[in-house]
């Protein structure tokens, strides 16, 4: 039996397709996945004033006690910031808030933007101190983590020899086991130019796949267009790449690396992905596609998939 379940969390629809699950098993899996998403949302949301992240984001200037989960996520963000010379920086929350995207409301950016270097950590006491007007947004890591953890929660209670599932959370994907008849999961990539079209597809199994794109979340601020992937070296929305898809062992890795592709110069992004041996499919503003052989090997011509 193939069962479909959908719930809504973090402002995105989460769709789970389960193969070999009975209806009641599917319901139980759905409940476990939903619980994980709810937990992540309450902890890490920049859109909920009562979240643990927002309590940290309003504690500027003083030492603030956080949970081990939040502490680790912010530490991970800082490590990524150091690796990318600050192109990625969790302090991006302030820039996004100033565009009216997420909390705090009516946020005015300071003249000099605080960066990840201004964060102070007390590892023993799990304390973090933010600079004045520093607003953190770790979403690029957190969403993939939630998807992986939801997947893990389902795996723990299933028979991996005969059951499989795919979680699709607003375009970011985690798969476990196989689709019907032991087949791989075929996942298409959306065409950034048209919501009605797909551009290619790849067959994956026991892997995460994520697409970061500049075409969905954005707006205009003081007459200037913006999207949510902001290079914090320049504090501007990163130009050049409109869509980056990465396949990795976990959705967290796929999602993080896909976001970095948009933020980094293309050569740097490609070098980073090659070093990690990850399959990728990148679409530039002018429509040029950059992909590696490992992706090409997983690629399936759409014509053979659509009757």
């Amino acid at each position, binding site marked *: 039996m193939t069962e479909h379940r959908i719930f*809504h969390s973090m402002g*995105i629809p989460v769709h789970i397709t389960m193969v070999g699950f009975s209806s009641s098993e599917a319901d139980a899996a759905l409940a476990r996945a939903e619980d994980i998403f709810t937990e992540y949302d309450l902890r890490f*949301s920049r859109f909920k004033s009562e979240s643990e992240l927002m309590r940290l984001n309003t504690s500027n200037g003083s030492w603030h006690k956080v949970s081990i989960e939040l502490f680790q996520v912010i530490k991970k963000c800082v490590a990524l910031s150091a690796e990318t010379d600050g192109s990625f920086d969790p302090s991006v929350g302030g820039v996004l808030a100033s565009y009216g995207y997420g*909390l705090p409301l009516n946020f005015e950016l300071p003249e000099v933007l605080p960066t990840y270097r201004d964060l102070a950590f007390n590892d023993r006491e799990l304390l973090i101190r933010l600079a004045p007007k520093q607003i953190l947004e770790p979403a690029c890591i957190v969403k993939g983590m939630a998807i992986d953890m939801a997947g893990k929660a389902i795996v723990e209670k299933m028979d991996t020899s005969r059951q499989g599932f795919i979680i699709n959370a607003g375009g970011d994907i985690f798969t476990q086991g196989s689709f019907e008849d032991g087949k791989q999961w075929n996942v*298409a990539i959306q065409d950034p130019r048209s*919501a009605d079209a797909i551009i290619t597809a790849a067959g994956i199994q026991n892997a995460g796949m994520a697409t970061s794109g500049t075409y*969905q*979340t954005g707006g205009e601020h003081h007459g200037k267009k913006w999207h949510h992937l902001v290079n914090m070296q320049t504090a501007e929305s990163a130009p050049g790449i409109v869509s980056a898809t990465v396949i990795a062992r976990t959705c967290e890795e796929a999602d993080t690396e896909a976001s970095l592709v948009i933020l980094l110069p293309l050569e740097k992004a490609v070098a980073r992905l090659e070093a990690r041996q990850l399959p990728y499919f990148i679409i530039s503003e002018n429509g040029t596609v950059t992909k590696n052989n490992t992706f090409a090997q997983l690629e399936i011509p759409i014509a053979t998939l659509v009757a």
Partner: protein
Amino acid sequence: MSLFTKNLEKFLIFFFTGVSVVLIVMGVARAKKPTSLAAAPAPTPTPAPQTSTLGATTITGSAYQTPWGSASASITVKGGQVVAVSMPSVPNSPPSIYAEPYLIDQALKAGSANIQGVSGATYTSIAFKSSLQSALAQATTQGQSVSPSTNTAVVTPTAKPTVPQRYRDDDDDD
């Protein structure tokens, strides 16, 4: 068998019977909830751009794309106050992924495409917000005086498309 073991045994039997009953009740309660996607209400496909009822005017904002088709927000203005905010078409409401899908999702539903998912940039509520803002701007150009305090109350980052209650637990995005 000692009295203690006997009592322990008794306790365990009662305890696990109790737990089982609770679990069964919870299971039944859950099974009673409508889980079928087909049972979900179908979205209204064509938004009426201007409908006046009892002095209230409904203004539809610019359409925006979501991975599941285009959508637009609308507001109902009465006496300079925004009295309602709604989504005339609700493509991102989960059940409508099946009910009103885009090309490839139709193929998915019919089973004619061998594709189990589409990976793309995350759809968030920001597009809804800009559609809403365009509706508010239209209201002003049409001579409706919309009080600014109401605007700011309505246009919050948590504004999102109308979706059936059971999908509406959360109001934010990443």
